[in-house]
């Protein structure tokens, strides 16, 4: 009974995403979408995937991560390098194939980083864990600023702090990647959203997902029930890292130049804002919040210079409103019209 319900919910979710995609595509082809908004379509997909994957860590696994952009940058740079390598060494000409393969490369590298970072990070708790993820995000950015990659014939060359390497430079230290293969497209971004939803929703509704949520709700009880807490925290962390890496690769391949400074702490925070505003643990909320807030600065163009100020005020007001007990109970009454469970023998209280 319950199984069917979750499956139906998932199918509805995919349906809504597909319909939204079709509407967007129609708007694009009929020319009713502004140029700047059209340019935002791939970043919107990227931020949706980022938000959903971060929600897996923050909402489902219950650990605050402040370094999610780090995985995005790993994915972006490995994806950019991968795309160049695929084209010139393996001769993959088909753009969509190259994009998809690059995204897989980006996801794989981010997953490796997820494992390496997860091992120390997940030993910590609460705010300490948060600050260490922040630290790792900054370290990744710092190190990327010192790395130079070039493609010399069939060889990929890496150097540290030394810009003089033979071959065509792909990544140029603090200046980042230039002349990037701009192969990212909105339809592929949309497929990535579907894939992310598929991964995350199915994971949540499986044995592993329940174990992840159990470790979130009560670590000690989960251990007493024989659940290997570290394993499941790691599973959520690495899955999220891989998805962020794929999103990063898509993002990187959408611009002609990409520098590591694009993946600052602020970007991690931005994604976290999507997650919290959309509702912690609420996948749908993340999608809507990511899409709206990526477009919001665009919509706030009328405010010109006051744009970011308005954004900040909106953010604070929304947080105050959603946490106001009165407004909360009002919402609860509106949304949760389902009555509480029938209780038997309720003499206990």
């Amino acid at each position, binding site marked *: 009974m319950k199984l069917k319900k979750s499956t139906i919910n998932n199918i509805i979710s995919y349906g809504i995403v597909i319909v939204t995609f079709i509407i967007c595509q129609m708007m694009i082809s009929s020319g009713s979408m502004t140029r700047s908004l059209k340019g935002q379509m791939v970043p919107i997909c990227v931020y949706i995937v980022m938000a959903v994957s971060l929600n897996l860590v923050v909402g489902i696994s219950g650990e*605050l991560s402040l370094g999610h952009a780090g995985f995005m940058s790993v994915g972006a740079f490995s994806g950019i390098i991968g795309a160049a390598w695929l084209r010139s060494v393996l001769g993959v000409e088909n753009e969509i194939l190259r994009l998809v393969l690059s995204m897989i490369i980006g996801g794989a590298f981010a997953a490796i980083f997820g494992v390496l970072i997860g091992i120390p990070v997940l030993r910590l708790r609460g705010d300490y864990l948060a600050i260490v993820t922040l630290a790792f995000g900054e370290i990744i950015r710092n190190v990327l600023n010192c790395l130079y990659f070039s493609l010399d014939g069939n060889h990929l060359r890496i150097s540290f702090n030394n810009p003089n390497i033979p071959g065509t430079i792909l990544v140029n230290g603090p200046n980042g990647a230039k002349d990037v293969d701009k192969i990212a497209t909105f339809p592929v971004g949309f497929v990535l959203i579907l894939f992310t939803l598929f991964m995350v929703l199915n994971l949540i509704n499986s044995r592993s997902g329940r174990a992840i949520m159990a470790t979130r709700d009560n670590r000690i009880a989960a251990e007493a029930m024989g659940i290997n807490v570290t394993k499941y925290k790691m599973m959520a962390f690495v899955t999220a890292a891989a998805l962020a890496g794929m999103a990063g690769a898509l993002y990187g391949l959408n611009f002609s130049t990409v520098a590591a400074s694009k993946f600052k702490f602020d970007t991690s925070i931005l994604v976290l804002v999507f997650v919290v505003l959309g509702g912690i643990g609420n996948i749908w909320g993340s999608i809507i919040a990511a899409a709206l807030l990526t477009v919001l600065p665009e919509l706030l163009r009328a405010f010109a210079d006051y744009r970011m100020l308005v954004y*900040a005020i909106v953010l604070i007001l929304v947080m105050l409103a959603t946490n106001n007990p009165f407004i909360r109970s009002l919402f609860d009454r509106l949304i949760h019209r389902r009555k509480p469970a029938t209780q038997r023998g309720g003499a206990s209280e």
Partner: protein
Amino acid sequence: MVSFLRFFINGISLGSVYAIIALGYTMVYGIAKMLNFAHGDVIMVGAYIAFCAMQYLGLPPIVAVLCAMVVCTLLGIVIEGLAYRPLRQATKLAVLITAIGVSYLLQNTALLIWSSNPKVFPSVFNVGAIRLFDGNLVISSETILTIVANIVIMIALTLFTGKTKMGKAMRAVSEDKGAAELMGINVNRTISVTFAIGSALAAIAGVLLCSSYPTLQPTTGSMPGIKAFTAAVFGGIGSIPGAMIGGLLLGIIEILGKAYISTELGDALVFAVLIIVLLFKPAGLLGKPMREKV
């Protein structure tokens, strides 16, 4: 050797600034159990106020610092009252995001008022320097002032939390908010005072930071803010001597790392040390390990 000494002293000076900022973080965390991400931006506001007082009003540096402290204190109380107090029952994350919102708000307000063009902070306290080793080692008056200010603040705060009634109330609230309230302590007022003290310290830190590193921009406070927060965690968040030690160590590591290992990787090094320390001491250097009662 002389150059090492120079770097070391610069490290202590930078570390002192971090320590003063970290004190604000750690006190607020200890009492309100929240990461006040806007704290770094209060530093920036403090520096701008002092800058304006000196540049446009022609006030003497000491008065300018006092002005900055007053404005930041008020700012801290207002932020706490308007943005954080309504969220006292909310989840930690909600408060964190609100703090981030406040941080954006301060940065963008500063951007509108003072524009993004960097201001050159006047060298306020330049009253000569100490020259040692035939002039090879120059210790500027800013450096000395920063270190002295740090020591004075540290002693004053320790006395304040240890001896005064308000200080004891702060410790009680940080231990157990509910119990403190039952004992007749005005929790809201105590938290306000904590924010006020933290923000006043931020103003001092802002002026000190900008007199050593004189470019002032709306984003000036964010990176030192993050590093000071790291310092607070490093020393054990919630602990006042911890913030002091964490700040100093972080400053020294950063300057020495930049000097001897790699200029680009200085920040990475700071964070790497933090991670290593936390792995061996999960509650920081002086933090008390929390054991969950089963």
